[in-house]
């Protein structure tokens, strides 16, 4: 087929989609330039930097340590609370800005900067070199650069990835299994005694993961939570006693903190008060001189806000002052003023804050071009500062004015300190809100490109008028696109997007019921009613969205009946295995060959089922409570990586064999259905990548796909069904537009090391399992032979029994329409002798792609406009930016690779099927 102008415009439309996505992303998630190199002390009139009270730091991170876990009445940290009461511990609530996930938080705590949203993506692609802090200025780098600087690290291997070749001794733990509450922490704790005896290091970092795992698994009220807090408190006690008693540790500042908090469901990532309020405690006997005795346990001032509120980034400059090293270059934190009394000389205090201010000024000058930062005599109107740049310049002018007024003498600390603090604080808040960093021209260019993509898709439809028809289906297709676009501007609809798809899909099934009713003998649309019923079950499977997060749903109901859930899971696996088995056996004739096929399919299915059991034994052992203990132990011995690889390899060889067989036998005229066979093997991979409690959903999907395939629909209606069902299935599997709902539990199936591409693909498959499944089904349910056969058979029966009435006429009309459409589609139709009887309507892939492309580009356009128009909106980082990330995955991952790539492959294979059938 020669490419004509309509296919070319569709091609252009699809090429423009990824370009638009990337251009917009570079403007929306600007890559923040950082100042390279290590900071050094600059010379000031104040002379050498003040002497540091501490020379060592023990930095103990407890993942997801929310403020109330340490400070409230229901806390297991009784020893830590006693330290607060006796005045040797300074407690804070450290505000962690969104996204509240580990890697950006570690970056904030070590560099003092505010990580850009880009770090969210990099958090999932951790090995990416751009995200390491090897070349950035951090307090770790500064401590290592000190004379005799040696660092040790135990715990979450995020630190090892962020700081390659930084640690003298390290033992990283990775969090593969969220059900691991003890092993991950014992792995850290066992190093503590020997390190406390060693005197060669000046920084020890520990990162405990167990508490976060408990949160993810069962929420903050889990019965495991208090024992875990007690365990952490024991370690605090152990370390604090060592500091008190061992002479080489006497000048050690001991910090206990969380990297982020958690919400009431035990998850994190967003900007809820619980998620952004981790605890932060500084402990040392030396603090007795400055710390006021505080009440502990206590009540929060507001939700999760205990004691003084500081920013997480303040940790870096505070450590710089306490340990005596230059503040890291990219720092936006402010030295915590509670520690200033450690220095008796007022000028030392001024010097600390002045160095802090000068360092921040350096960054401010890179963003704002006001002359006033360099020239204290430049004209500056401070009566009503209009821009944030001017506001900062005015705050800085106050500092310089005080110095100028002293004519060479040092100003009194009480007069200069407030001015310095005011400047630092506003610089921190202004520079932290990245609003000024959008590259609006790129945003507009991205919008333009997405608009062009939509326009080209539209041009294609106008040039090829068969794509879209002015009909009820056309109206509904247009309405879905229009409503979806409008919805992107309302934050609650973005958060609760699932309702839109559930709602439109149920209407669509009712519409299909009307269509079906016109074609059915009794007028009763049984298949559509079935679809509606299954749809209702599907949408209740997982509660998703923000508003009712944690409400009861079928998946959680099933989790309390493990035997029931396993029955459903195994039934799903067995059904699928039967399909795969049937695919092979019907291609084979010899008894021996058939026996071999039986054996290999049985083996593959067993591997797949045992993988699930072995995975669950590690990830959710409570689901195997009914299982004999020795059996669980045996399951724990099974090698997960090898099992997963076995499944993937089995499917791969299965596909190879099918391809080989079809290549050899294309002329034998057997009903090939290669597409169906490939879909079945792919389903096995999808089940492997699906959370156990969601596996039965694919059984329901299979039933639904079969019902749709048997409905008398035209291909436009099939395409719209696929659009609706891909989205419905995405949300029904528990996904949402929030970062916290990304499922990483199956990210490492079959991967032993860290391979960013493999993990990326596995994460995509496990989160887009539903959409991928429905896309590969689209080809099958678009093969209309089943439906047409149904209609024809009934028509004939009717003809025999009764005279013609209007229903029959209507039916015949539709059948002939479908046939006419199929004649147009199947290529060598003029030569076909029997075309009016048995030509199944071929699914016109280009029409299908055109409709999907138009939907994708218009929705992308709407999201882009919403993100641009609402870029100063309160929820831009919590609602719209995550939505854009999801849109990127939908457009690039799902549309380009799945809809067009995989869908195209299935269509090509399906075409082979039809040719084979015709020869038959």
């Amino acid at each position: 087929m020669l490419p004509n102008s309509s296919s070319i415009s569709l091609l252009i439309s699809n090429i423009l989609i990824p370009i638009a996505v990337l251009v917009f992303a570079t403007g929306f998630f600007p890559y923040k330039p950082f100042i390279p190199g290590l900071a050094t002390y600059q010379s000031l009139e104040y002379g050498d930097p003040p002497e540091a009270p501490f020379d060592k730091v023990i930095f103990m991170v407890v993942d997801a340590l929310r403020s109330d876990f340490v400070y409230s009445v229901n806390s297991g940290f009784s020893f830590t609370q006693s330290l607060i009461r006796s005045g040797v511990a300074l407690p804070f609530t450290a505000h962690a800005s969104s996204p509240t996930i580990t890697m950006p938080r570690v970056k904030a705590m070590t560099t003092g900067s505010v990580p850009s949203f880009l770090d969210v993506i990099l958090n999932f692609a951790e090995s990416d070199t751009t995200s390491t802090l090897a070349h950035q200025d951090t307090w770790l780098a500064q401590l290592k650069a000190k004379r005799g600087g040696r660092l040790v690290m135990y715990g979450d291997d995020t630190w090892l990835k962020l700081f390659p070749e930084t640690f003298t001794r390290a033992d990283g733990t990775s969090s593969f299994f969220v059900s691991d509450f003890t092993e991950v922490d014992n792995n850290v704790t066992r190093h503590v005694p020997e390190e406390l005896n060693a005197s060669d290091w000046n920084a020890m970092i520990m990162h405990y993961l167990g508490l976060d795992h408990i949160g993810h698994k069962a929420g903050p009220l889990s019965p495991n939570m208090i024992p875990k807090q007690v365990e952490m408190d024991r370690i605090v006690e152990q370390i604090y006693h060592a500091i008190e008693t061992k002479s080489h540790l006497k000048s050690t500042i001991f910090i206990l903190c969380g990297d982020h908090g958690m919400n009431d469901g035990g998850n994190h990532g967003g900007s809820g008060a619980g998620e952004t309020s981790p605890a932060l405690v500084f402990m040392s006997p030396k603090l007795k001189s400055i710390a006021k005795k505080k009440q502990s346990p206590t009540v929060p001032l507001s939700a999760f806000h205990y004691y003084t509120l500081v920013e997480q980034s303040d940790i870096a400059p505070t450590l710089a002052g306490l340990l005596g090293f230059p503040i890291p270059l990219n720092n936006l934190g402010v030295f915590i003023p509670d520690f200033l009394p450690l220095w008796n000389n007022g000028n030392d205090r001024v010097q600390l804050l002045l160095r802090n201010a000068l360092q921040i000024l350096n960054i401010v000058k890179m963003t704002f071009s006001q002359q006033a930062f360099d020239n204290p005599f430049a004209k500056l109107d401070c009566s009503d500062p209009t821009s944030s740049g001017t506001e900062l310049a005015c705050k800085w002018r106050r500092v310089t004015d005080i110095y100028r007024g002293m004519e060479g003498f040092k100003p009194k600390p009480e007069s200069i300190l407030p001015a310095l603090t005011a400047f630092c604080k506003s610089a921190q808040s202004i520079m932290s809100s990245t609003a000024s960093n959008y590259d609006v021209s790129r945003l507009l260019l991205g919008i333009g490109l997405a608009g062009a993509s939509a326009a080209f898709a539209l041009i294609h439809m106008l040039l090829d008028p068969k794509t879209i028809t002015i009909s009820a289906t056309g109206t509904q297709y247009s309405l879905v696109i229009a409503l979806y676009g409008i919805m992107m501007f309302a934050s609650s609809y973005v958060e609760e997007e699932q309702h839109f798809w559930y709602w439109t899909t149920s209407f669509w099934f009712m519409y299909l019921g009307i269509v079906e009713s016109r074609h059915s003998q009794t007028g009763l649309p049984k298949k559509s009613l079935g679809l509606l019923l299954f749809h209702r079950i599907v949408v209740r499977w997982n509660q998703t969205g923000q508003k009712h997060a944690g409400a009861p749903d079928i998946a959680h109901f099933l989790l309390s009946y493990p035997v029931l859930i396993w029955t459903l899971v195994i039934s799903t696996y067995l059904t699928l295995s039967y399909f795969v088995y049937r695919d092979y056996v019907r291609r084979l004739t010899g008894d021996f060959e058939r026996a071999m096929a039986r054996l290999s399919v049985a083996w593959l299915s067993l591997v797949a089922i045992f993988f699930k059991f072995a995975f669950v034994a590690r990830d959710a052992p409570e689901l195997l409570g009914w299982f004999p203990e020795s059996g669980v132990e045996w399951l724990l011995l099974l090698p997960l990586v090898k099992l997963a690889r076995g499944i993937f390899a089995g499917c791969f060889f299965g596909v190879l064999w099918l391809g080989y067989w079809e290549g050899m036998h294309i002329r034998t005229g057997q009903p090939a259905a290669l597409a169906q066979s490939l879909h079945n093997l792919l389903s096995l991979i999808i089940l492997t990548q699906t959370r156990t409690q969601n596996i039965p959903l694919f059984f329901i999907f299979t039933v639904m796909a079969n019902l749709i395939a048997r409905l008398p629909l035209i291909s436009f209606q099939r395409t719209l069904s696929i659009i609706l069902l891909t989205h419905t299935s995405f949300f029904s599997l528990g996904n949402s537009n929030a970062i916290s709902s990304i499922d990483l539990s199956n990210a490492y199936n079959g991967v032993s090391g860290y391979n960013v591409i493999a993990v990326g693909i596995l994460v995509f498959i496990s989160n887009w399992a539903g959409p991928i499944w429905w896309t590969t089904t689209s080809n099958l349910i678009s093969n209309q032979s089943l439906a047409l056969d149904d209609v024809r058979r009934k028509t004939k029966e009717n003809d025999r029994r009764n005279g013609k009435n209007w229903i029959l006429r209507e039916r015949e009309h539709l059948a002939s329409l479908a046939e006419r459409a199929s004649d147009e589609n199947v290529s060598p139709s003029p030569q076909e002798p029997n075309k009016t009887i048995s030509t199944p309507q071929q699914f016109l892939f280009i029409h299908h792609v055109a409709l999907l492309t138009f939907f994708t580009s218009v929705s992308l356009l709407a999201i882009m406009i919403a993100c641009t128009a609402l870029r100063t909106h309160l929820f831009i980082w919590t609602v719209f930016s995550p939505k854009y990330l999801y849109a990127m995955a939908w457009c690039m991952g799902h549309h380009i690779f799945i809809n067009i790539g995989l869908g195209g492959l299935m269509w090509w294979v399906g075409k082979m099927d039809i040719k084979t059938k015709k020869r038959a």
Partner: protein
Amino acid sequence: MSSTTTVTRPTEPSTIALPIEPLATDFAKIYIHIHPFLLLSLYIYRFDAIVGDPVSTLPTLLVGSVGLQLVYILTCLPPTTAGTKSNPPMLAKIGLKKKRTKQNEQGYGDKVIPAVLSLILTALLGVPLIYIFVVLFGGPLTTHFLHTFFCAAHIAFLAVLPLVYVFGVDSGRWRELAGLLIPLDDVVGGALGTVFGAWVGAVPIPLDWDREWQKWPVTIVTGAYGGYVMGKLLGGQILKGKVIEI
């Protein structure tokens, strides 16, 4: 008062049912226009109370609505047998050969009995059926039983009651309705409008405005009443006699 429901018939046998003509009485001609607005006014009058306490307000409102609906069907609509006359082949096909008597005169007895039967059928079959559909379309199953029940009852007495009154147990007509192979009129328009309105009524529920009226099932019932009025206006007046293309 004599009605003239059987006078004008197209000479050639029609394959598609005719729209239902309201009775030609003076009262009917006026009341058919007032009725939807009376219902809507009653609903708006009770709206705040519904928002405040749906479970106790919805049933009392239902009494009023059913009363108005009864007035409407008794005074404005031809009862079931009149409607079926338009489609004899259908009856023949499904073997429901009814003995048909010419009904030029219709006393109140002829109307009251079908009306009472419609009322019973709607309550016994319509309400449970609509309840099932409300749940299928996303209504709560395990909670809010009474909320959903009264919501379904309102939809049923708005949409189903007049349909039962004019269609009776003529499965052919119901089947045409299922396939939307039926011309729009006051009754069909009102029914479709109610269902569609109830569906659209779900739209504001996910918004984070946290208003009382967003709670189940206030928006659904509101949508149903609004849709009923709109559907009657469109089906009974503007698009009367047209068949919806699907």
